């Protein structure tokens, strides 16, 4: 447990520079959307939840490439393997730090952006709850692809191609749940739990491939 908290605290400290980037991207993406589709309030209300979910997925994507790359490049992974803790546990700590520092701010500002898109009352709550339940899946799934591409010099574009198809179930159930005031929330939760169960093992296995 001590090791888990140690890596969680370290990554949260190191993430200070990165979290604003994803948040800024997310806010800009949602702000630009009415400029693209026009100011019809009814159209905005219908597209809103889906656009906010898409924005959250893309913002997650741009924050993923540094998740493991720095540790692989500077040799920290070697030492992590010698810690006596299973790498899977350390991965869990890193993913938790990523979600808390980078994604949680998006979940918090999403209702404000929702107001801008003419969502109100019940719809705002549904949006916030769906994001809170579903976005951990984005971090967990993204972690696998980030671990696979961590050793690549130009891993970013490859990462996008790997990770966006994997975001499909989360995006479908997340946007559906947000748009329908909570229907499909159970499926969204299931996607999150499934990804949480698989991701530490898959990410750790991918990371081990970079050590030789």
């Amino acid at each position, binding site marked *: 447990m001590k090791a888990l908290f140690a890596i969680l605290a370290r990554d949260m*400290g190191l993430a200070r*520079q990165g979290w604003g980037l994803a948040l800024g991207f997310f806010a800009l993406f949602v702000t630009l959307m009415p400029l693209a589709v026009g100011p019809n309030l009814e159209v905005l209300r219908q597209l809103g939840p889906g656009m906010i979910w898409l924005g959250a997925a893309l913002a997650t994507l741009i924050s993923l490439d540094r998740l493991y790359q*720095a540790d692989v490049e500077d040799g920290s992974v*070697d*030492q992590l393997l*010698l810690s006596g803790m299973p790498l899977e546990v350390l991965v869990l700590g890193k993913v938790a730090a990523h979600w808390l520092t980078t994604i949680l701010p998006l979940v918090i500002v999403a209702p404000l952006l929702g107001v801008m898109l003419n969502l109100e009352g019940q719809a705002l709550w549904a949006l916030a709850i769906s994001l809170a339940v579903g976005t951990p899946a984005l971090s967990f799934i993204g972690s696998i692809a980030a671990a696979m591409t961590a050793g690549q010099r130009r891993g970013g574009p490859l990462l996008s191609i790997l990770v966006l198809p994997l975001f499909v179930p989360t995006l479908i159930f997340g946007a559906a749940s947000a748009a329908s005031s909570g229907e499909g929330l159970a499926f969204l939760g299931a996607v999150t739990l499934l990804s949480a169960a698989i991701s530490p093992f898959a990410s750790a296995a991918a990371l081990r491939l970079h050590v030789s």
Partner: protein
Amino acid sequence: MLIECDGLSCVRGDAALFQALSFDLEPGGALLVRGANGVGKTSLLRMLPGFLRPSAGTILIDGETPADRADRIHFVGHSDGLKASQSARQHLSFWSNLLNGPGNVDEALAIWGLTAIANLPCGVLSAGQRRRLVLARLLVAERDLWVLDEPTAPLDRAASKIFIDQVATYRSKGGIVAVATHLDLAIGNALEIRLGEGVQI
């Protein structure tokens, strides 16, 4: 800890780097790996903690595979694992917690003469200071084997002296060191392997 290496060979790509290398290391022992650039010093050292699998031969640590005993090993390689925005003290505290050490971070900083710069971010440290900090990590958690790849290259004379003293202290308490270097390090009574030339004692 007893390390038994039997018939180690390393093939990388098409090149056979070394073949049929056998040696044992006992508590208090030391291994010095020497040789020209590219003869496989780093490859040999990376086999000891199990990062790299030998092309042939076996490594047993207390009768187990290196991966099973990984939590008894310190490894210092070329890349130093320092984060530019973390301070020296934060770096050592982190590894002390992660490696389940006794929490003697200030003592380790003092031994390596880093107390005055303990709160500076690693990004502004000089090459020698960075190396001192990496070697201070060896002191914040107890391990039975230190695997050190070119540990002293950026160090000044005073820091090299600290390194030699620390290695001697560590060996007197039963620790084992495995060092690759091209410098003349005063590590006495060591098994010396000159890669490309065979084994000498």
